[in-house]
C-alpha cells in the first residue's frame, strides 16, 4: 500500500511532531533557564535519558515475556494514570504529582521493554506481523481514548460554569492534562502489551548482546529515578544555608530605621528559598514596621519540587516597645510529601532601635 507518507519518508508525522515539541520545550527551557535552574537541568537529563533508552534495542526478558506480568504492568499504569488525572496541584504546582509521575515513568520504561517499543518503532523496523498487531492496538486504543476524552471534554464544558472553569484550568496545566498527553503517547503500547500472547523464553528466545549503551541507559534511568528521592531526603538532612545583613536606612524625620535582608535556602537543587526583606523603625521608645512585615510578605522566594506552607506569620510589639516578627515556613518535598522541614525567620528590634535578633 503506497501513499504520500510512504513516498516521502523524510517528512513523517513523528518527525513533525518531534520538531514542534522541541520548539515548544526549547522556548520553555530558555525562558526558565535562570528561574528554575536545577529543574531545567533535571528535565534536560530526562530528555537525554529518553533518547539514550530509545536507542538501545530491548527484549522483554523472562518476566515481561509473560502475559500475566504484562497485564499487571498495564493495570498498574492505568491506575497511576487515574491517580494522576484526579490529583490536584497543590501550592506552587507540586501537590504529590511528581511521585506518581516517577512511578509512571518507571512503568513506561518496563512497558517499552515488554513491547520492544514496536508501537512507536519506524516502519522499517517492524515485520508484517508486528505491523498488523500494532495497527490493531492503535485502533483499540483509539476506541478507548477518543470517546473517553471527547465525552469528558464535552460533558464538562456543557454541564455548567463551574465545570467549564475546571476544564479551562485543567487545560492550563494539571494532572489531567498530563494524563491526556501520556495516554496519547503510551496507550497504544499499553494495549499492545495487553494483547500480546506469552513469548518464548529461555534458550529458544532471541537474545540481545549486552552493550555499553545498554548499561549506560540502565544507569541513566536509575539516576533519573533516584535523583528526586535523594534530593528529597537531602531536604531534611542538609543544613539550612542562611545569608543575611542589615544596614541603616533613611527613615522619617526623627526615626531610626534599619533595612533587613535575609535568605534561607533549604535543600539541594530541589528546595526553596525563604526570604525576609523589611524595614523597621524606632522613635527611641517604640519599634515599628515600615514595610515588609505583613501577612502578604510571608511567602517563599523560589521553590523547586517543593511546597511551602506558612505555619506562622506574626508581628507584635510588647509593652517595652520591642518589635517581634516571626515567619515560620514549612518546606515539604513534592516527591515524598512526608518529608518536610521548618524554616524560621525572626526579627526582634528593641524600642531604642537596637537589633536583638535577626534572622
Amino acid at each position, binding site marked *: *500500500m503506497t501513499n504520500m507518507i510512504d513516498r516521502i519518508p523524510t517528512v513523517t508525522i513523528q518527525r513533525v*511532531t518531534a520538531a514542534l515539541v522541541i520548539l*515548544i520545550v526549547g522556548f520553555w527551557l530558555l525562558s526558565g533557564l535562570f528561574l528554575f535552574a536545577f529543574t531545567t537541568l533535571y528535565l534536560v537529563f530526562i530528555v537525554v535519558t529518553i533518547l539514550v533508552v530509545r536507542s538501545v534495542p530491548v527484549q522483554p526478558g523472562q518476566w515481561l515475556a509473560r502475559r500475566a506480568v504484562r497485564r499487571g504492568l498495564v493495570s498498574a499504569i492505568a491506575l497511576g494514570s487515574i491517580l494522576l488525572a484526579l490529583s490536584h496541584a497543590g501550592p506552587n504546582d507540586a501537590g504529590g504529582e511528581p511521585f506518581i509521575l516517577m512511578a509512571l515513568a518507571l512503568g513506561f520504561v518496563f512497558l517499552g521493554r515488554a513491547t520492544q517499543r514496536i508501537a512507536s518503532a519506524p516502519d522499517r523496523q517492524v515485520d508484517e506481523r508486528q505491523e498488523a498487531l500494532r495497527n490493531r492496538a*492503535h485502533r483499540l486504543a483509539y476506541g478507548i481514548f477518543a470517546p473517553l476524552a471527547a465525552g469528558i*471534554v*464535552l460533558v464538562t*464544558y456543557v454541564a455548567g460554569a463551574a465545570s467549564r472553569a475546571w*476544564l479551562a484550568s485543567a487545560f492550563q496545566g494539571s494532572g489531567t492534562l498530563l494524563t491526556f*498527553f501520556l495516554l496519547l503517547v503510551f496507550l497504544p503500547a499499553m494495549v499492545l502489551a495487553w494483547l500480546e500472547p506469552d513469548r518464548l523464553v529461555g534458550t529458544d528466545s532471541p537474545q540481545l548482546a549486552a552493550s555499553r549503551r545498554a548499561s549506560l541507559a540502565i544507569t541513566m534511568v536509575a539516576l533519573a529515578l533516584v535523583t528526586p528521592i535523594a534530593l528529597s531526603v537531602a531536604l531534611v538532612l542538609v543544613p539550612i544555608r542562611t545569608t543575611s545583613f542589615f544596614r541603616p536606612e533613611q527613615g522619617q524625620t526623627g526615626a531610626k530605621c534599619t533595612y533587613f535582608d535575609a535568605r534561607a535556602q533549604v535543600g539541594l537543587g530541589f528546595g526553596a528559598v525563604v526570604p525576609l526583606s523589611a524595614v523597621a523603625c524606632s522613635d527611641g521608645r517604640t519599634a515599628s514596621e515600615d514595610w515588609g512585615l505583613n501577612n502578604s510578605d510571608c511567602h517563599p522566594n523560589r521553590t523547586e519540587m517543593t511546597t511551602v506552607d506558612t505555619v506562622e506569620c506574626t508581628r507584635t510589639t510588647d509593652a517595652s516597645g520591642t518589635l517581634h516578627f516571626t515567619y515560620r515556613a514549612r518546606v515539604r518535598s513534592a516527591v515524598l510529601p512526608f518529608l518536610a522541614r521548618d524554616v524560621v525567620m525572626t526579627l526582634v528590634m528593641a524600642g531604642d532601635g537596637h537589633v536583638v535578633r535577626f534572622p
Partner: protein
Amino acid sequence: MTHANWLQGSDIRRALVIVTGAVWGFFAVPLPRSLDGAGMPLTLALLLLDVVLGALTGWLAFARTASLDERQAALRDRAYRLAFRLILLGVIVMVLGAIAGSIADNSGTPIQPADVFGSRWIIGLLELLAALPTVVIAWLQPGSVEEAESPSRLSPSRWLPLIAVPLLAALWLVAIAALPVEASAVRDDAKHGLLSANETCGHFTGTRDVGYGFGAEVRLDVETCWDGNRAYAFRKDIYADLTRCSVEPGTADFARVRKLACTETTDADGTMHYQVQATVQSGLLSTVTRNVVLELDVTRDGTVLSFG
C-alpha cells in the same frame, strides 16, 4: 470520468480533507479573536464535511471487522495508527496556534486562557478526536474501479448520517431560543479607598450564558463605590477599566451579541441602578434571538438590592 467516478475519486476526497483542515484551522487558532457568531455555521460545515468523507469512505473507520476484507481491515487499522499520532500533532498545533495568535494579535489586549480554551478550542479538539480516522482513510484510500461501480456507494444508509447536520442545527437553535440561560453572580470583597478614604468599593461580575458554552455570554462588570451619599460605578483607574461594557473576545464565537447597552442611573436616595441589556442572535438564523438583562442595584450605604 463519469459522474459516479468523479464522486469516488481520491482527488476529490483529498480536496475535501484539505477543506476540512482549513475549516478546522478556524477553531485551532484564536484568530480572528472573535468569530462573531460564525462558530456554529463553521461547526455545521465541519460536521457536513466529516459526514461526506465518512460516506465517501464507506464509513470504513466505523465498520465491523467481520464485514471487511483483509485489505480494508489493514487500511483501517493503519489509519487509526496515523490518526492517533495526528491527534498529538493537532493538539500541539493548537497550542502553537494559541501562542502565535497571542503574538500576532495587535489589539493590545493579551489573549486570556479563557479565550484560548473556550468553545472554539473544544470544537477543534472534538473534531480531532472524532473525525481523524475517517479523514486519514479518505486521504489514503485508493480510488478503486470496483468501489466506484458499487451500488452501495449511493445507498441511502451510507448518507443517512447527513441528518446529523440539521439535527445539530435545530438542537442548537432550541438551546439559543428556549433552553434556560446559565447565570452567575460574583461579588468581590469590598475594599476601601479608590478615590478617598471615606468611600468603599466592591467589584460585581454577573454573566448570562446563552447556548451552554456554545452561544454567547453577556457580562455585567461593575466596580461599584459608595460613600454614604450615593453609590456609583467607578470607571477607570491607572491600570484598567474597572467597569466595562463590552463583548469579551472568545465569548461570542457561536452567537452574536447585538444592541449591547449599559445604563447607570442614580435616584434621589443615592441608590445606583445599573442595567446591562443585550440581544443574543443566532449566527444561523437572525430571527432566532434571546433578550438578556442583568441588573445591579446598590444603595448609598452599600446594601445590594438586586444583583444578577
